[in-house]
């Protein structure tokens, strides 16, 4: 609920099924469209809005209050915001006093041209999405129900959509390794296929003393060979993995030749490369509280998750086993190859935002590289 002193313009989110959720317009662009997904995180909004995996989506925060601590330096996951729009229950609009805060969230959204809606009954919206599945929606002026819902319906469906190409880097670039006291001593080169990478993933890899060369999504293997990588990493990213055939082909080439590690979209692509298929979840996993069991150790991690697609466990070849499971809905959360140095996870061990329980996986990749090159 908003302070009455702020004269904000009413606006609405209209879903492709005609459901309308009213609110007040915040940010710059009065209109936005995309797949509407809800996230149950209670902190980390800045990280979420800059995560390229949310590219083209309208993100609904279920938390009662968002924006309380403003926006802080060093937490952006990309140089720009990627979400198409954002819906709040109550966005904090006035000044912020947090010691790290540089700008308020509305100011930040304005700067990045991000369209938003606040004062929305996000619980009703969330229950709607939960019951009817994630669907396209349109943020626009009030009382344009029919037009808006037509606009929402006109948006492309997420299934079959290759968005990685839109968010990948334009050309390859290098990132030096970071030596951490007590960490791995030998610097090793790793090629990163950028499908929409989060900065914190790169940070985590680098702090394993890995020297990175980050390549655009559609880089042919010959280009990658040029940097003589010791391993290949596939990043997170938006869209349908099945549409990224180029990346699937690339992985197929490298599996068994080099250690391969993938996260999120990278994991789905590795799954496809193994011969498995992917499918779309009804409303995806978006939150910081997803329990994942490591089937080797039985340990359960609380993980940060953000995905709409998922690897189906049924068509996995015998040499690939599902190593991690989501214990809420028994979906596959990780794969490992028994005959090749390769593994991947659906969740986000780099967190940012979210719990750090699974951060050790970056170390596991490092060990895999060392073993392979020993």
């Amino acid at each position, binding site marked *: *609920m908003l*302070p*009455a002193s702020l004269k904000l313009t*009413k606006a609405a989110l209209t879903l492709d099924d005609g*459901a*309308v*959720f*009213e*609110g*007040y317009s915040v940010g710059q662009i009065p209109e936005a469209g995309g797949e509407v997904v*809800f996230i*149950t*995180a*209670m*902190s980390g909004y800045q990280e979420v809005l800059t995560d390229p995996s949310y590219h083209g989506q309208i993100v609904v925060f*279920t*938390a*009662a*209050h968002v924006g*309380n*601590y403003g926006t*802080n330096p060093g*937490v952006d996951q990309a140089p720009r915001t990627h979400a198409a729009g954002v819906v709040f*229950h*109550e966005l904090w609009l*006035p*000044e*912020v*006093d*947090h*010691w*790290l805060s540089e700008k308020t969230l509305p100011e930040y959204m304005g700067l990045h041209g991000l369209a938003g809606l606040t004062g*929305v*009954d996000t*619980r*009703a*919206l*969330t*229950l*709607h999405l*939960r*019951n009817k599945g994630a669907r396209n929606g349109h943020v626009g002026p009030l009382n344009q129900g029919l037009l808006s819902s037509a606009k929402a319906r006109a948006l492309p469906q997420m299934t079959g959509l290759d968005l990685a190409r839109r968010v990948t880097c334009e050309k390859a670039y290098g990132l030096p390794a970071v030596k951490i006291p007590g960490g791995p001593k030998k610097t090793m080169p790793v090629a990163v296929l950028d499908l929409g990478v989060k900065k914190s993933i790169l940070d985590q890899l680098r702090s394993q003393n890995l020297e990175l060369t980050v390549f655009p999504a559609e880089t042919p293997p010959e280009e990658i060979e040029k940097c003589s990588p010791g391993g290949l990493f596939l990043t997170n990213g938006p869209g349908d993995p099945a549409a990224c055939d180029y990346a699937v082909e690339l992985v197929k080439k490298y599996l068994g030749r080099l250690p391969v590690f993938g996260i999120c979209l990278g994991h789905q692509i590795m799954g496809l490369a193994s011969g498995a298929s992917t499918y779309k979840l009804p409303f995806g996993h978006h*939150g*910081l*509280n997803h*329990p994942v*069991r490591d089937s080797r150790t*039985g*340990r*359960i991690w*609380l993980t940060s998750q953000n995905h709409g697609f998922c690897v189906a466990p049924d068509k996995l070849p015998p040499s690939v086993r599902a190593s991690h499971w989501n*214990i*809420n*809905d028994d979906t596959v959360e990780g794969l490992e190859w028994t005959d090749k140095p390769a593994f991947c996870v659906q969740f986000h061990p780099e*967190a*940012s*935002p*979210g*719990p*750090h329980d699974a951060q050790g996986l970056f170390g596991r990749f490092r060990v895999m590289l060392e073993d392979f090159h020993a």
Partner: protein
Amino acid sequence: MPRRDDLETIMIFGSGPIVIGQACEFDYSATQGCKALKEEKYRLVLLNSNPATVMTDPEFSDRTYVEPMTPEVAADIIVKEHVDAILPTLGGQTALNLAMELHARGYMDPGVRMIGSTPEVIEIAENRSRFRETMTRLGLDIPVSGLASTVEEAVEIAKKTRFPAVIRPSFTLGGTGGGVAYNLDELTELAWRGLTASPIRQILVEESLIGWKEMELEMIRDLADNAIIVCGIENVDPMGVHTGDSVTVAPIQTLTDVEYQAMRDESLRVARAVGLNGGCNIQFAINPKTGRRVVIEMNPRVSRSSALASKATGFPIARVASKLAVGYTLGELKNGITGKSACFEPALDYCVVKAPRFNFEKFAGASSVLGLEMKAVGETMALGGNFREALQKALRGLEIGLHGLGAPVSPAEAALPDDLKLERLKEKLVLPLPERLSDIYSALKLGLPPAEACLLTGLDPWFVSQIELIIEAEETARGTFAETVARGGNPPAADWRHLKAQGLSDIRLAKLVNEASPGLETNAEKILGLRLKAGVVPHFRQVDTCAGEFEAGTPYYYSSYDSPVSPMPAGPGDSGRPKEPGRGRVMILGGGPNRIGQGIEFDYCCVKATQAFAAMGLETVMVNSNPETVSTDYDAVGRLYFEPVTLEDVLAVYNLEKPDGVIVQLGGQTPLNLAMALKDHGVDIWGTDPASIFRAENRRDWNELVEKLKLNQPPSGMARDAETAAEIAKNIGYPVIVRPSFVLGGRAMCVIYQERELADYVSRLAVSGSEQGLDLDSRHLILVDKFLEGAVEIDVDAVADGGQVVIAAIMEHIERAGIHSGDSCCSIPTFSLPLSVLNEIRSQTHKLGLELGVRGLMNIQFAVTKDSEIYVLEANPRASRTAPFVAKATGCPIIEVAAKVMAGRTLEEIGFTKEPHRDHVAVKEAVLPWSRFQGTQVVLGPEMRSTGEVMGIDNNFGIAFLKSQIAAGMATPQLGNVVMTVCDADKPALKTSAAKLARMGYDLFATQGTAQYLEKETGVRPAVLSKLGSVKPNLVDFLGSNPVQFVLNTTSGQKADRDSVLIRAEAIKRGIPLITTMAGLTAAVTGLEALVELRAENARKAEESGPEDAGRPGKYSPWGVTPLQDYHDPARDQAKAK
């Protein structure tokens, strides 16, 4: 890991009497633990001295021991019941300390395991130096500090920490004996107090973190190293105020994800390092300017905060912790709400605010400035769509006369010019006072810049901004909204919704409208009518642990108006369920926050009645706002609405659920106060007609009734001013007992011996009237009664069905008339009354029950004078504070019986037609919070001040009494020093007791007068101690430097003289048992004699049957231990009779 099959019998410790810092949250935890382990088919043995609890109801465990929680008793039970494991993590610090004591003394057979937390875990977490070592080893930041065992060491450490410095005693609960020292003098004083309070004579002197953000994480870890944070809680009041005294909010509002996750990582590392298995609470302080974060403490057990976290999120921490203790891992357990895994972290899409309830008005002389030592006696929690809604719901749920932010002001204060008002407020804001948030609100309204409010209070600006938003909303209400209402129109629904979503109650809206349109005189009733016409009612949302992500089946709801512009229909789980055809539905109103006079006893009544209704096939609906209780466990009731128990909030639930009946007589005064208004709204009140309840409370009606039944009552009168009061007093003769009508717990009640005191009393009442919410309007007259000095007081609990009255128990108070029944010790059965008097009491009870048309519970108080005259003092046709005691003492399920009666059954049908008779004796003793309120006089009187109670049960009255005293905190008596100083009037009564004590071998000490008297009258020659103010060392010095078994100190009249004040304060400070009445002494001496006999008998038996412990009733304690199940078994009495 699956369930441990190597364990068969598990013993659970409760937390003993309710004291400040350890309230009924542990009843909730242990009750949940009992249920969880019973599900696993373990044999359960429970030890708790507190009869008012739900957990001590015999149905929750296989063997229920209501015995003193001493290591000796626990050890005897372990042997007797072949206990395999002890679960000490559900009963607060008391349980943990008891377990550690058992362990340290080697009373536990090596085969007996401690599960949940092992001694090693407890040691690392609770021993300050080991905890600090562990934190340092983990590389975690901790405040600069040092441990001291002497005052000198403390002074030395303070040189490093600088002032202000914080003193924290080791191993105390709720921070007893802690404080903040701003200079050397204060440091010396606090160090001394802290060292005394600590059982191991150790204190921590620490760098002050006052003004830092205070955060708590409630976490659960299993032995496979899976760990979750159930809930993060942010204290709105920054560091410097005990978290139990702070307003808190969940989820955390002002930390970034980076900060939060770093804190989460550290919590996990701490839990791992400590070896936690189960629930724990970790506190952090964060410097708001630099982000520096330090670990404050960790409790390896469930706590007040974990109860709060469970209610705030819907995640049952105690239940899960209990399952982990018996071998399960988190991944093996289900979240009962969603059917998903229990190994997850709840996500909240609402705000939860907890607000503490204080009772400073009962402790004249004690400072209400909050600090490190907890002072709150209860709390209320509210859920709302946003912080403001939750905060204002919490504030009105406190029942301290607040209808939202902004405390009522006295007319004198209101008359001050604004700038003076603001100056005063600014002075107050510097101090952490209970009403601080309301003071900020008032100051902001008077123009205090928000930044200055933050500076003065240390509150995070976000919270101050929230208060600004509430003020802004109120401005809106005073604007066009008020104009529309004043014009006779109805504001648009969106405007209503906006204001209601800021947490503005109908009462507050009425006030705002009236402020804007003087002379309009609208009221909450009219506002409600308009609002309903506008179609604005709250949405009821489900507490689902997952922010709507999964479908949830929990019957747990809260109301919110915050679905701002597009009021979409609520989701499938988000509303009340339609009634099942043919099934009745009953709504039970709980008691709201605990306070002195209305506590856990009423929760027991609500819970037991709910069970009884459910057993009858009725759907049950609970409305309550107290997060500490069992009644707000969604598992304990049919459907739970976590709402303030106010008319507006209750009606909203009522209108949704449309129950067939509403129960108001079980939750104490809170629901009773709503009874008439609910009835006016067409609500069918089940049980005794509210009119009857008020007939018994209204003095004029009551007088007529007593007259009609030809009963006796003390002569009395009603006055509206000092003159009339004096005249009445003169007519009926001093001493008189005076009180404002319509109060619970004897609030502001006083015995007056002379006219001068009476005038004082009336003027004091007038002055404090508005401050304390006691106004002298027509409903609040002063009642003046003849005080029956020296009379025996009797409590009768009975159940009636309109045609029949059946007594459950007659209780005799140990102390004489004049001491509030809640503060006095009492016994079932009576011990000094002849049968003829008892039969007359029975007959009067029947008459009253029938005349009042009681359907359900009733409690009657009588006084019996020395010449066996019976006076009826009051009759309350509702659940009484003693109902749970009666149930535990006699085994008579009076609450269930009453519930069935309220639902329409007759006593005949239920089969409860005869007053039960038991051969054993049960004694209830009150526990008083003197040590928390330094500066107040230690005097029992007609105003109730106890926070909790304990029960002693035995075949022998003396032993039962002694057990009650030991359970209340007295050490098991050994021979030694007894100090006596009594007023002249009491001297004759001292003769017998003193002689008995001397004969038993006690060393008696007395002041000159008392000693001389005894020597002359009895030949007993106590050693003489010099009076205060004369030669040193005097009596107080003696208490300070010698072990003393107990102190007897009586004074004439109600007020302690100056010497008595000091003597009593010293005894409290030293933890020496204090007896302040001659009746108390007589009972104690009876107990000591019984103990001597018992010991002699034990020795004789031991000799007869050989040296090993054979033949002794208990291996460790002199008496045998017997569970309630045996006491309640009628076969036992029959067997004994044979």
